[in-house]
């Protein structure tokens, strides 16, 4: 949303980003702490319900995917339509290495994560080298996603094809059960958010902002565009891989659908559309909203898809920067008028 953000009503996103950098350290990380605290309370209310804990785990997973996607797309404008595939590389690699070849669980997950990082870094490197724009990067990664899905379906001996793979590694650890894995995934999500905020505030963040605002100028000012892109691609993909691997061992079962484009990528996009692309708390707000709506309209069957479509259209027409920033913007405007400050023309 690089250019779109700069040009349209979503400029509140950019303003928000810029102002956060001047905040003190505790203030910059405060939203993460609040969210962590609220989310940590969830099992207190629904901890004994298998159904609701399943939903909550799904929400955490998508939120983590969305933060990783944000690192890649939200900050460097590289449209990776391979969220599910990159997670799937690590998920399948880790499951197969540990179950079939008897590798230790942690080592298998590490190798899977690194594999995802290498593939993602390679995407970035290729798209920088060939100077592909957003759409072409999107299409190349999309073809990779679909190709990966076909590969999973085809390599029946290794992946179990359509019937999927029962994952035994992880049994008896913190990854299984109802409440322990919830806190593990929550810890991962919080770590991701901290990493994202830290990246934003580091020289990485300055370079990303400079890139997003004006790539040419950034390059002239000495920002190594290629290097930052490749790093963002690799770091974000490693994050996707880690979540994908954890997911595989937690669910104890994976199939091509677990990482399919129309499941993972589409859902991540909807969540980010809801919460705001390229914002810190967007993935969390979006994921909570999405999970609640998803549960509310569970009985509508096929029409759910239609409802998502309507929501997606309405969100992109109404709040191009996501609901989160829109609410924050409205709050700022309200508090400003409450202080009876002179009305200034709003950037949005």
């Amino acid at each position: 949303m690089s250019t779109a953000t700069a040009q349209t009503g979503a400029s509140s996103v950019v303003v928000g980003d810029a102002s956060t950098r001047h905040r003190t350290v505790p203030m910059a990380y405060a939203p993460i702490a609040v969210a962590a605290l609220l989310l940590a309370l969830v099992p207190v209310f629904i901890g004994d319900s298998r159904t609701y804990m399943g939903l909550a785990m799904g929400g955490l997973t998508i939120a983590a995917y969305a933060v990783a996607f944000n690192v890649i797309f939200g900050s460097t404008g590289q449209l990776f339509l391979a969220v599910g595939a990159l997670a799937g590389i690590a998920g399948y690699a880790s499951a197969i290495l540990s179950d079939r070849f008897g590798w230790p669980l942690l080592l298998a997950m590490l190798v899977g994560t690194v594999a995802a990082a290498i593939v993602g870094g390679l995407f970035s490197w290729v798209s920088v080298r060939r100077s592909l724009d957003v759409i072409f990067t999107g299409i190349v990664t999309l073809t990779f996603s679909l190709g990966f899905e076909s590969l999973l379906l085809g390599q029946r001996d290794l992946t179990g094809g359509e019937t999927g793979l029962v994952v035994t590694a992880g049994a008896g650890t913190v990854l299984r059960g109802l409440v322990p894995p919830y806190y593990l995934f929550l810890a991962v999500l919080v770590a991701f958010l901290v990493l994202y905020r830290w990246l934003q505030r580091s020289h990485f963040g300055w370079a990303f902002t400079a890139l997003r605002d004006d790539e040419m100028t950034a390059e002239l000012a000495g920002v190594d565009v290629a290097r930052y892109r490749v790093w963002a691609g690799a770091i974000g993909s490693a994050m996707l891989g880690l979540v994908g691997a954890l997911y595989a061992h937690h669910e104890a079962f994976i199939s091509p659908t677990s990482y399919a484009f129309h499941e993972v990528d589409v859902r991540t996009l909807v969540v980010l559309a809801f919460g705001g692309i390229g914002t810190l708390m967007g993935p969390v707000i979006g994921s909570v909203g999405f999970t609640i709506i998803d549960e509310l309209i569970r009985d509508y069957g096929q029409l759910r898809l239609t409802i998502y479509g309507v929501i997606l259209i309405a969100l992109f027409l109404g709040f191009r920067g996501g609901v989160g920033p829109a609410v924050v913007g409205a709050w700022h405007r309200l508090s400003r008028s409450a202080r009876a400050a002179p009305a200034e023309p709003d950037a949005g």
Partner: protein
Amino acid sequence: MVAVFLDGIVAGLQLGLLAVGLTLLYGLGGILNLAHGAMAVAAAMITAALMNASVPVVLAALAGIATATLIGLLLDQTVMRPVYRMEGEGRVLLSLLLSLGVAFVIDGILGWQWPNAALSIRIGGGAVPLFGVPMRMGSLYASGIALVAIGLVNVFLRRTRQGRAVRSVIQDEQGARLIGVNPAMVRTLIFALGGALAGLVAMTQSMTAPVNVTAGFNFTILALIVTVVGGLGSARGALFAGIILGIVNALSAYLIGAYITSIILLAAAALTILARPEGLFGRSA
């Protein structure tokens, strides 16, 4: 072997036709319509429903194509309005995300209304020999209709005033505006044409194999791949790329096996983008 080639061409003609609408819209100003496949499936479902109500096939097919055309017009007049006000990458992205939403809406309604429906138009008559290979009547009809449609599109783009206006906008929107072409009108025209062609492909596809209610996503992906390989914005490129990919698809399915085929197809698309981002037939930037 000849049979495989011919099958590939039959499939390729339709791939090309499916991609024409998509590629022209992109050329006209960076609009990527991910609801393209959903439009085709909507046409198929309307036709199937009408055929079940014993409406004659030709009428039902025309009604289906009209439905897809109307969806195209509706998209252009409503959801896509804000997209036109944007520029550059923002425009492409917003069109992509909004049309993805539209695709969800259409797919959801179709799946809810007709959960297990499929359209297949049966063309009677036995196999006809062509180059010593027996061809099914359905394939011949499908190819014939596709060829006629391709011819008409070509005549429209090259010979008519409206068609030249379309090409002028693709080449240079500012210049076209200066000589009195209205880009908004041209876009509306192409949205309608794209819808009609998508509907038509649904009809011709269903003559060789049933078109399921879930086919929309696949249609869109195939059209996207063909569009990219042929060069974004090039109608002729889309047609050639469609035929080439159709043959590649049939050959590798015959020689290697079905699942590797889709990977080869996807790899071909990715490699084309990397080696020649303007597409096989696109003008180099």
